[in-house]
């Protein structure tokens, strides 16, 4: 069985994944990801799902029919994109207990685990009462700018799932059942056309904004933080930059605290806009709320039990990704990892094969538990 799983990891991981670019104003304009989505669709079809379809955005969905058609389906999904895309072809290697390759942990190995399910379930003779939906969701990456596509994916589902399992590469033992409030935003500074006294260099303006962000006094409770994650500006050594862009992430365990922080940042931007006479745009790429499935929810407790029964160390922490969209829609959902790895966004990202086999057992265990318990909740 391990060869089937590894074969899928290699074959899917070596199909290029592109997630659009930061400069793209229209996240829908990038269709590069479709190669991996098409591979996923072809593969789950070949591996024996009962039906294979795709949503209007081209995300592949495989259906394994359950024994009790009246039950709501269980959705098992993984993002298909890899944030790190090396130039040239992608080649994976297997070295002893380690598999190595770019994009492996984020998220080729998670997607391959989902893609392998039709084959593994069939070979193990496992059947479910609920219909199982296996989905690969493309174009979710790039600073979560396109997390909105997860929302559109959920919107497009004809039937609301009774439970959802979001599969990530790592780390094995991870359990996300609640989310933090998160805002990811780009601050774009541009020279105002025709302004006589505008400052010549937008990098300096961006720097002033960063200084003011760093001066913010943030509450320790509810825990709230600002991260300046990206900066870009200018095009030539000797020429003052006419544009600069700063990418920030705001996080809080409280929706109210995050709203208050957002308001203070808006004030800072207003002040700099007027004092420096520049155009400043605040472009929110993703806004997630703080929400929770609850520790006592059957899906949470069943997932925790499976992880512990496999002898894995349970690692509970908040999601800052797509889980929010599921919970917000009233879909009981958890995020789990299927492997232990390292160097997620490097050329030599790696994962332990042994951990992947445990991860696969964990995934099936959670699916069975969801089929037995969570769907009845």
């Amino acid at each position, binding site marked *: 069985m391990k060869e*089937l799983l590894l*074969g899928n990891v290699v074959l899917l991981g070596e199909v290029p994944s592109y997630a659009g670019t930061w400069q793209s104003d229209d996240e829908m304009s990038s269709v590069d990801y479709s190669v991996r989505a098409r591979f996923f669709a072809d593969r789950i079809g070949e591996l024996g799902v009962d039906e294979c379809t795709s949503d209007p955005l081209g995300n592949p969905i495989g259906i394994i029919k359950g024994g009790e058609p009246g039950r709501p389906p269980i959705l098992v999904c993984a993002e298909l994109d890899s944030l790190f895309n090396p130039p040239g072809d992608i*080649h994976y290697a*297997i070295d002893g207990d380690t598999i190595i390759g770019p994009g492996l942990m984020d998220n080729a190995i998670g997607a391959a685990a989902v893609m392998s399910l039709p084959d593994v379930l069939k070979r193990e003779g496992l059947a479910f009462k609920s219909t199982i939906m296996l989905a690969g969701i493309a174009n979710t990456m790039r600073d979560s700018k396109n997390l909105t596509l997860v929302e559109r994916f959920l919107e497009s589902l004809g039937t609301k799932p009774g439970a959802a399992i979001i599969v990530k590469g790592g780390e094995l033992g991870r359990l996300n059942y609640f989310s933090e409030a998160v805002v990811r935003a780009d601050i774009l500074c541009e020279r105002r056309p025709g302004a006589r006294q505008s400052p010549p260099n937008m990098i300096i303006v961006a720097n002033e904004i960063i200084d003011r962000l760093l001066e913010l006094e943030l509450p320790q409770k509810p825990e709230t933080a600002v991260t300046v994650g990206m900066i870009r500006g200018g095009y030539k050594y000797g020429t003052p930059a006419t544009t600069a862009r700063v990418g920030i992430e705001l996080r809080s365990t409280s929706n109210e605290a995050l709203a208050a922080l957002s308001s203070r940042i808006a004030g800072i931007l207003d002040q700099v806009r007027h004092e420096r006479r520049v155009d400043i745009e605040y472009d929110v790429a993703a806004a997630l709320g703080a929400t929770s499935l609850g520790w006592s929810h059957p899906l949470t407790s069943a997932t925790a039990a499976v992880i512990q029964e496999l002898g894995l160390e349970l690692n509970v922490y908040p999601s800052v990704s797509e889980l929010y969209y599921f919970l917000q829609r009233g879909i009981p959902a958890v995020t789990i990892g299927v492997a232990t790895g390292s160097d997620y966004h490097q050329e030599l990202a790696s994962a332990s094969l042994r951990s992947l086999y445990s991860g696969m057992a964990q995934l099936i265990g959670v699916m069975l538990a969801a089929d037995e318990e969570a769907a009845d909740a």
Partner: protein
Amino acid sequence: MRNGQDWLSSRTFHHSEFSDIQALVERKRERGLSISLCFPTLNEEATIAKEIVIVRSELQMRYPLVDEIVVIDSGSTDRTREVAAEFGAKVYLATDILPCIEPYKGKGENLWKALYVLEGDIIVYVDADIKNIHPRFVYGLVGPLLKNDDTRFVKAFYDRPIALDQKTVKPSGGGRVTELVTRPLFSSFYPELAQFIQPLSGEYAGFRECFDTIPFPIGYGVETSMLMDIYDRFGLEAMAQVDLDKRVHRNQSTVALGRMSFGIIQTFIAKLRASGKATMAGELYKTMIQFELEGGAYRRKESAIDIVERRPIVELPEYLAKFPARAGKA
């Protein structure tokens, strides 16, 4: 040139023509054939696991096209044999096969000895240093053999980007020995064989009789020699080639390619003489002379490359004892 353009167009395939693997499996069953895959290895721990995993998952477990995967190792000093066995291949050390005969070291020796341990009617040889292994490397080769009754031997060709290091892949530059040595020789003496796009490729497949009835040089020159012998014995119409798209492999130094070229030329001339196509007044020298720049001075480096040839294995009593149906086929 006999069969000129006709052969090239009618006997050159693309792997995609055989991507319906289930159809190949059914054809194999209809014809009552079995298929053995052989990886000759020498220190290939970096790539062998992935090669075996891909073939086992796609062409054994998912589609039962390949009946056995066998690694014939020349005496690796790394973990090649251990890794290959761990991932489910049958592993043999070449010196352990037919221990009663004097052993030699070389890829040709491995390929020849493999014939004794492989059980299949169709034998597929695939080099173990391919970084972008894909099932097409196998089904592309066996496809023409299974689908066309008159095809007995298939040779691979491909784009050959070479991996200079972990990050740099040069899109062309492979096949230097082919273009500078083998093709000129074939063009001069065997123009039909010059139609093989990559006569030196390490991936080929054929029915057992293509391999067990021909001699094998133990080292360099085995691929060149094989083409000449199969051509002489079975004719061009029994041969085909298949485009496997891209193959990424390790780069070799010019000095190493020089030694390879020397071996090929030696083999080629020996076969010309044996076939009566050429005569020579004396014997060839068996030492390749090269130079290395060391400390600002050139240092002469000699490599003795002796062309030892294994006779057709079908002539070996041990082989006939194992495969009695092959008796009288020499």
